[in-house]
């Protein structure tokens, strides 16, 4: 299909979609209206179960089994990405000794800020996970903060320190354990009070999301920094690993 024909086909489909979508939105309740039957019931249940953050109550209490499915999707996608990104044996991985990833030539201010922000950001992540049932936040949001916090070390130019900080096999095991813990908790917690269930599930999700993110970013870093590009026909020169 030529690009022109493809755009024409898209224009045809988009026009139909836009017409149907617009017709559909015209009958929706108006934006900002007062009629929200599900919201009223969800808020009433959240307050009755003693969870001040109604969003966390919906995610981990009222719809906890749906979150279980979401959790499995997260695990499956993370495992699949890690499998796809594994370093094949026939690809050359540079040994640590031949690498110069840092401390790279970054400004002192950036290095200082990175090292100062690392413990601060980790604390914020733990706070967001642990306090997720009471204030805006929760396991997913806090897990993302935790997973990105360790990469401040990379931004500070210290890739070897980042590798020491997050041994990938440990994080692989931790992610599997956290996912299993979530399944067990979600099944076991049906009889618990919501005040115990929501923080427990928040914690399991926080660990799993943090580990999954660290693992994924770690694999992408390996691809970008450690794996040599395929040898060109003329000889084996060039590698992507050199720090700029």
């Amino acid at each position, binding site marked *: 299909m030529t*690009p022109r024909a*493809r*755009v024409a086909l*898209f224009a045809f489909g*988009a026009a139909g*979609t*836009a017409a149907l*979508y*617009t017709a559909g*939105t*015209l009958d*929706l*309740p*108006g*934006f*900002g*209206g*007062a009629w*929200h039957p*599900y*919201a*009223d019931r*969800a*808020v*009433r249940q*959240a*307050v009755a179960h003693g969870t*001040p*953050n*109604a*969003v966390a*109550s*919906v*995610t981990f209490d009222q*719809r906890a089994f*749906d*979150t279980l499915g*979401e959790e499995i*999707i*997260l695990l499956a*996608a*993370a495992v*699949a*990405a890690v499998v*796809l*990104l594994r370093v094949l044996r026939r690809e050359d991985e540079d040994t640590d000794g031949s690498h110069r990833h840092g401390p790279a030539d970054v400004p002192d201010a950036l290095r200082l800020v990175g090292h100062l922000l690392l413990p601060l950001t980790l604390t914020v992540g733990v706070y967001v996970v642990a306090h997720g049932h*009471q*204030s*805006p936040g*929760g396991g*997913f949001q806090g897990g993302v903060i935790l997973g990105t916090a360790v990469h401040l070390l990379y931004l500070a130019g210290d890739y070897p320190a980042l590798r020491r900080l997050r041994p990938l096999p440990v994080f692989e095991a931790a992610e599997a354990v956290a996912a299993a813990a979530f399944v067990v908790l979600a099944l076991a917690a049906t009889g618990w009070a919501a005040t115990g269930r929501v923080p427990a599930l928040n914690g399991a999700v926080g660990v799993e*999301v943090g580990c*999954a993110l660290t693992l*994924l970013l770690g*694999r*992408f870093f390996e*691809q970008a920094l450690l794996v040599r590009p*395929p040898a060109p026909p003329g000889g084996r020169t060039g590698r992507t690993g050199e720090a700029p």
Partner: protein
Amino acid sequence: MSVLPYLTAGWIMLVGVYGIVTSRDLIHAVVCLSVTQSGTYVLLLAIGYRSGATAPVFSDRPPPPAGGPVTDPVVQAMALTDIVVGATVTALLLALAVQVAKRRGTLDPDALRSLEP
């Protein structure tokens, strides 16, 4: 115009699909897919909005009706699910793009028409 937020969500989705259709680079296509998905965030949050309402968190104020209206927590939880699944799918697609680039030496979808090089 009370349907404008809904139409905005639809417009974002169509713009994203247009980007995928005309994409010449798989990374660009993955980003366009993320744009398409952002339309669903806008749609969900627009449906849950209530005029003059605040966040559905009651740690420091009484729940309705005493504390005034709040936005819909159900669609906010759905948007959260949406974001998580979207992020992991993006990671998976980027991993696929890395392997395609490694095996085929190109990321142009038009150059990847056949399965074998």
